[in-house]
């Protein structure tokens, strides 16, 4: 391999990375259907259900168990009961609806206590370190959507 060809390798990786981020829909650009559903993937990259399961349980990320029971995570103690149990949730909502609820729950359920996981403007007095940030990244949302789709 000639030196200029070697130099092209990192360049092509860079191009791929740029493409991926260009494909990510920014929080303010997400399009909602009238029922709150979001039909377009936020990243274009298929969600990873195994990682979604981790994000779901992680107290600093989704922390979904704080409010929802989920028998698939029975190895975790103490499931909350604020929201509905998520057993079989994939039978009740399609992918677009699940994504919409995660991105901005209020578009589907007006006045809900549920946080909006991919929205920039949240409650008043948001701590500085969380300002201008979403609770989950676009890919983490896609991963959780992929995981929820396995709950049948």
């Amino acid at each position, binding site marked *: 391999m000639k030196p200029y060809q070697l130099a092209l390798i990192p360049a092509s990786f860079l191009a791929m990375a740029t493409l991926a981020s260009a494909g990510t829909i920014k929080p303010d650009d997400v399009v909602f259907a009238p029922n709150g559903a979001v039909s377009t993937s936020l990243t274009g990259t298929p969600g990873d259900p195994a990682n979604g399961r981790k994000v779901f349980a992680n107290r600093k990320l989704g922390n979904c168990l704080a409010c929802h029971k989920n028998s698939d995570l029975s190895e975790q103690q103490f499931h*909350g009961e604020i929201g509905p149990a998520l057993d079989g949730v994939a039978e009740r909502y399609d992918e677009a609806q699940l994504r919409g609820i995660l991105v901005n729950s209020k578009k589907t359920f007006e006045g809900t206590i549920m946080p909006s996981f991919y929205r920039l403007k949240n*409650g008043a007095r948001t701590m500085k370190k969380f300002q201008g940030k979403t609770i989950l990244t676009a890919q983490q949302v896609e991963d959780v959507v992929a995981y929820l789709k396995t709950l049948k």
Partner: protein
Amino acid sequence: MKKTTRTAMIGAFLAASLAFSAQAGGMNTELVIDTDNGPVKIITHVKNPPKGSPLSELYSGWVFRSKETQALETDDFDNPGMIFVEQARDAWNTPDGTVGKSCADCHGDPSSMKGLRTVLPRWDAKLGKLMTLEDYVNESRVKYMGAKPWKYGGGQLTAMVALISMQSRGMPVNVKTDGPVRKFWELGKKLYYTRVGQLDMACSNCHEDNYGKYIRADHLSQGQINGFPAYRLKNAKLNSVHGRFKGCMKNIRATPYKVGSDEFKALELYVASRGNGLSVEAPSVRN
């Protein structure tokens, strides 16, 4: 039906209804505290709250705690918060400041403070401001003792507030919401229902809409403050009302108001008014 059977049935019915009155949705509401001055009955459940209350029934946070945690509050000897109260009693009797006087020199026994906690925060016409119990202690220290004010929310002040609050144990909370305090009460109410933080929640989302349910391992209460200052097993100290507000706001990723701020005093007044009718319970024991 034979008379004996009927009597037995009536007896069973009475027993059942008594049991029901002591239980609310399976929760124990009977709290009697063994104190140095004999048993003190605590009102932990108000079935018919004052008119205008947003809650259909009132419950002390004690009702939502585990049996083990509840038990710690039933006897002052077992209540870990009393260690701090005893420290405050020493401070009560110890001269401080340039005047060389103690609290006791003017007020005698702490029992002279009986009833004060039930009406605070309140508007003080002489001082022309909203006063919490913390404010009164510091007002006294500065004006009459020539001493430095204690840090709002700090250990010394919170313990003294617990000692003074304790003199009203068993008496129902009865803060005023009209007259000059109305604007503070309105501000407190606004804060109560304002969604804050990245998690975008208001006090009401948990403590009005979802009390009695579990959020992970935590049994959500109505967020009543009749038991404050509260000894928490979590941090093994007495916690002030404002300290608790601060903790809640941080949990939902909001920048808290300052402990001792006008906002938290207004919120304290509003939340206290939501518990009008529950007994003063300080120092309570919580998880």
